[in-house]
Structures are given as C-alpha cells and as structure tokens.
C-alpha cells in the first residue's frame, strides 16, 4: 500500500513535470470585484491561463463585452489585443471606440487584429501570447471552430503560461469540446437594473461556470459591471435567480464605506499586483 502511494506521488510529479505546471505554485489571480465569484475562484481568474467563454451567436454583445472587460482587468495598464476574423466583422459589427471608452476600455490601448480565417487567427494568437508585454488577449471565434482542438488549445495554454499573458477565448455558437482551458464559462446577457424612466441600466451578465480545472464547477452568478469604478458588482435586481452561490463573504466593511447603498456580499478587492490607488480611482 505504502509503495503504491509512493508510486502514485511519483507519477503525479512526473505528470506535473510533463505538463510544466509547477504543482504547488499558486498563480497570480485577477480579481473581478465580485466577492462570491472571486472567492469561488480562489481570488479571481488565473493569470496566464486560458479561459473560454461560450455563448450563442445572438449573445455576442454580452460575451465579447464581458471578455473585454475581464481582459482589461487582467491587463492593468498594458495594451490589449483583440483578434477576430473578417467574417466576424461582417456578421457581428465593428468594434466601436466610443462604446469601448464608455465601458472603461481605453481604445488607445487596444490593438485589433482582423484575420482572414481561423487558422491565421490561431497562429497570430500563439504569437501574441509569446509577447510578455501584452496585457491580455481576446480571441473571438465563431461557429464550431474545428481548428481549435485539444492540441491547438494546449499550444495556446503553454504559450500563455510561458509569458503570463491571459488569453480569453470567446466562442460564439461553439460547443464545449475537450480543451486545455483553465475555466470554461457560459455567458448571457441578463436584464439590467432599470434607470429611472425604465431605461436600460448598467450591463448585467449571467455567468455559468461550466468547468474549472481542479476546482468546483456548476456555479452561477449574475454580475453587474460598474464602468465608473471599474469593478463587477453583485446584481441587486428584484428577482434573484441565483441557483448556487459560493459562501457570501461576510460583512467586510472596509471597501463599502464610500458606497451610497449597502450591497449584499460585495466588496472592493485589492489585488496583490496593482496599487490600491489604481483601484480607488
């Protein structure tokens, strides 16, 4: 028995060395600002890991919007790269600078790559992931994207681990297939908190965690993006449709003092690698 345990440990070490993931090393996390989400993910999205966002084609606004926002959070002040295909531009419209700016994503720090096809897109994505100066990478893929198989996604993951650039894959109309992604999500738009006069309010996203490497999955959140402060907040609409929440972080008042209305279980996180002033601004 003792021998088999030893063998198992040796095998695990061997696999870890094959996978080139330092087994016990915690990777840096990008806090989203949503308390229960961050807690469920041990502090936020892992930096330098592949994250996949699945959505039906008609949810493209929400899916790319969420991916861009998360990319902005992951990148800090560094430039972003948004790769898409020319076909995506014809179907889904062009990125619009004033809208990006209004969402809190500086268009000046965004480079857009419009590639001819998926093959060129994936090649460019691997190239971009080898450039550590890049903040984050958003890859928009439409349809089943058969080229993004396990090998291709493994290639992306390795490049990302090497450089620490966070790739966010937006899969519009795709189905989850085995991949090297760290987390896999399903995104949809959700009814916003109306403004006075029943106008559409801040962007609200429905987020299902479909799979997470070495972690709990099947969770669901509803996030509201506060573009003024640059953090996600808990949606505090009338009807709460959350199925399963991580534990609420208790009444931590430190980040809530400046807030007009108290929220349930939301707090302002301070990530380790960004200065506090940056956050507060």
């Amino acid at each position, binding site marked *: 028995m003792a021998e088999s345990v030893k063998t198992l440990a040796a095998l695990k070490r061997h696999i870890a060395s094959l996978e080139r993931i330092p087994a016990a090393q915690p990777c840096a996390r990008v806090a989203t600002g949503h308390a229960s989400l961050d807690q469920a993910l041990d502090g936020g999205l892992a930096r330098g890991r592949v994250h996949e966002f699945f959505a039906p084609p008609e949810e493209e*606004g929400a899916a790319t919007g969420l991916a861009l926002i998360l990319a902005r959070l992951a990148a800090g002040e560094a430039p972003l790269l948004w790769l898409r295909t020319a076909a995506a531009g014809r179907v889904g419209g062009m990125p619009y600078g004033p809208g990006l700016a209004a969402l809190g994503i500086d268009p000046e720090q965004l480079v857009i790559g419009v590639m001819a096809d998926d093959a060129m897109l994936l090649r460019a994505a691997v190239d971009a992931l080898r450039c550590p100066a890049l903040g984050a990478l958003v890859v928009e893929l439409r349809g089943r994207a058969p080229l993004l198989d396990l090998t291709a996604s493994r290639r992306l993951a390795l490049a990302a681990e090497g450089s620490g650039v966070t790739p966010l894959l937006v899969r519009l109309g795709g189905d989850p297939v085995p991949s090297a992604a760290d987390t896999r999500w399903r995104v949809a738009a959700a009814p*916003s908190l109306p403004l006075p006069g029943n106008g*559409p309010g801040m962007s609200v996203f429905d987020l299902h965690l479909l799979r997470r490497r070495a972690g709990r999955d099947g969770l669901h959140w509803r996030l509201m993006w506060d573009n003024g402060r640059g953090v996600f907040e808990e949606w505090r609409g009338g009807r709460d449709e959350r199925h399963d929440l991580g534990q609420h972080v208790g009444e931590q008042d430190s980040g809530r003092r400046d807030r007009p209305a108290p929220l349930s279980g939301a707090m302002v996180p301070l990530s380790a690698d960004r200065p506090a002033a940056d956050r507060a601004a």
Partner: protein
Amino acid sequence: MRLATLDADALALGLTPGMTLADARAREPDLRVFDADPHADQDWLERLCDGSARYTPVAALDSPFGLILDISGCAHLWGGEDALAREAADRLERHGMRVRHALAGTAEGAHALCRFPVGAAADEDAALRRLPAEALQLGEESAVALRRAGLRTVGDLAARPAAVLAARFGEEAVDALHALLGLGRRPLAPRRPRPAIRIERRFAEPMGSTAFALKTLTEMAAEAGERLGERGQGGRRFEVVFFRSDGLAFPLRVETSLPVRDAPAIMRLVQERIDALSDPLDPGFGFDMLRLTVPQAEPMAPTQLALEGGEARREESVAALVDRLSIRAGRARIQRLEPRDSHIPEQAQLALPAVESRPPASWPQRQETGDPPMRPLHLFDPPQPIEVVAQVPDGPPHRFRWRRALHEVTRYEGPERIAPEWWTAKDGRLEGKSVGEGTSAGLTRDYYRVEDARGRRYWIFRHGLYGTEAVHPGWFIHGLFA
C-alpha cells in the same frame, strides 16, 4: 493685403514692397497680383540649390532669394570664375528667372555686393568699403543711428575703432563688419541631401542557396543599422531586392511601427515576410546580387537598456508584435481605432493600420457618475434593417424583428436625436438618401437604447422624422451593447 515682392518693371513704376494692394492698384490699375507662397518659394530655391551641385559640392541656401556657392577650386573647370558665373546665370535665366550675381572672398561679401551694386572699383576690398552701411543688415534702428552718426558706408565704419562701434551699436555690428571684410570667418552651411542608405552585395558566382543569401542579408542589415546609428536614425521601412542571375528580381518590403536599427529585429521581419510569401523565394540558377535600401528613416535616440526592465522595453515589445503580425497578415489587418470629430456615429472613428505612427488620440474619458454606456460596443456599418412595431408611428419601439428573431422591448431610453450634417448638404436641402451609402447628408435619426426581455441591449434608430421627412420611416439596428 500688402505687396510682398515686385518684379523689376513694377519697381520701375515706383511701387515698393510693403505697399497696400489698394494703393498699388490705385496707381497702376493693370497690376497683376499673385498670392505670396513662401513655402513654394522655399521649395523652388531648394531645388535650385540642389541643381547647383553641377558647379560645386558646397552650395548653401541664402533665404529668401539667394544661393551661395563656394566655388573655390571649381572655377577652372568652367574656364574661370566669370565664365562659371555667366554659365550659371544663363542657365537660370533660361528658366525665366532674373539673376544677379556677385563674386567675393566671403559669403557675406558676395551677398552684400549682389544686393547693393557699387560701381567699378579697384579691387574687392575697395568695393566692399564703398557699400552702404545698410549692407551690414543690422536692422532698422541701427541703420537710422548709423545714418545720424554720419556713417554712410562700410568704409566709414571700418575706419573707426572696433571698441567704439561695439559700445555704440553692439557686438553684432562689429561681427557683421568683420564678416563682410573677411576678417572673421563664418562657416557656410552647405545644403547637402543625405545620401539614402543603400547597400549592395554582388556575388562573383550566383548563389544557389537562400540560406546563404539570408546570411549575407543579415550582414547587410547590421551594416545598415550601423549607418543608421551614426545618423541617430532608425529605419521605418526596409526594402530588399533579390536579383536572380536570369534577370528576375524579388522585391520584399517590411515596415515597422517604431524606428528600428537592430539587425536581428530587421531580419526577423524579413523572415516573416518571406514566410508569408504565396510564391516561395526561388533561387533558380542563383542570386547574383542583393540590395538593401532604407527609403524611410526617422530620428531615433540611442537607446539605453533599462536597468529594471522599465516601461520602454514593454512598449517596444508590443510594437514588435504589431510589426510581426502586420507583416504576416497584411498591414491593414492589424488596426487601431482613432477618434474623429463627428457626431454621426459611424463617422466618429477610423480604423487605421497600427503600424502607422500617429500622435496619441484623446478619447472621451469614461464617465465617473456610473451611467451605463451610451454608445454600443459593436457597430454595424451599414446599419441593418429591422421590422419594428411601435404603438404610434413616431413613438418608441414596442417589439422588433431582427435576423428572423422577435425581440420584445422591455426597457428603452430615447429618442436621442442625431441630425444629419446639414452644412454639407448641397443647395441647403438634404436629400433623403438611404443609410449606409456613406453620405453624410441624409435624414434625421432617432436613436433608442433598448433592452429585450432576455436582457440583450441594442441600439436602434428610426430613419427620418415621421410626417416631415418620411412617410413610413424605416428602422435600423446600429449596434450591440455589452
């Protein structure tokens, strides 16, 4: 409006530069007037200066109307100084210019003698001393003071002790006098276009191997980088031509978004370009010559390695990524957005190639108040037509059909009325053009931010005001919100 300059005939009529045009016209109704264009004059003068390279390698501009040629050691080729001057004057007169010239030992002397003709004199020194004091070009105030002091010619000034002149008229008066008389020498700044960087390698035998050709190219790139470094420049564009022994030539061109003079960086880009060729580089019977030129270079400071891996390294590296992707995918495929000053939504931005350098743009800052975005994340250009049911023809949308799916509007905000650019319309009337023709004039649009029952947010508009501009205004979807 004043007269900037006049030709000899006009001067003979008594007109002077600086006169108002109305006065001149009153005196001479048939005056032919042209707008002054100092830039064109300067360009023309520079062209003439470059053309003077046939007489001497040291030719300088003497703005606004003159050229100074240093013909020391060149005159005998044309049969003497006077013959050279005559040749040059004839050549310019053939182009319809009126030319005056003077020869002197110093540039200042020639300049003054040319503009203030003195009669025949025994020698150059005597001629210079006979020049009026204005020839020193000391400015209006000093000229008046000199005249009041009774100093009318250069000779009068030269007869006075330098210390006295300096005390009364300033150091520059003495300097100008000495320069004119050839006592102190001011260097001439010749205008010489920098030769373009162009490096060629010829092989004694045609080179059958592309790898060897690339190795040679690496050496050439290093040499180009060294030459660029001496000038304090970096190349923005590099052109490589592979000449094949059977007469074919393969030109390649790489562009960078930041000036580069680092040979490995240049070679990486060239390699990318070669990899991206649809028709691979075929040596055939061998390459017999390689040529590397740098048609576009920009100032680039000598770089210092950042000790703590600072900000400079990071920016460089993203620029390198942009270059690489632009070369592989095509320069128009890697874009940056640039704001344009227009209230028409689809004209408020431009997507420009990211390799083109440009000043940082100023986008409107995100609002701090926490309002939701007023502009969509994705914009359809052209806008896509939708079918809308509204309760009243000029009211908000109730439900709409887009891409065969029906959307119930649960929340809306609007209308935000965006009028066409009436000032660009011809004869003051706007023609009802359909959306997406790229015309700025058109119909008024009423934009609504709407949210459907599932929470998706859209930007839709009614094209044309009901009743006044359109009988049945069409509806379009123009963007998607996050």
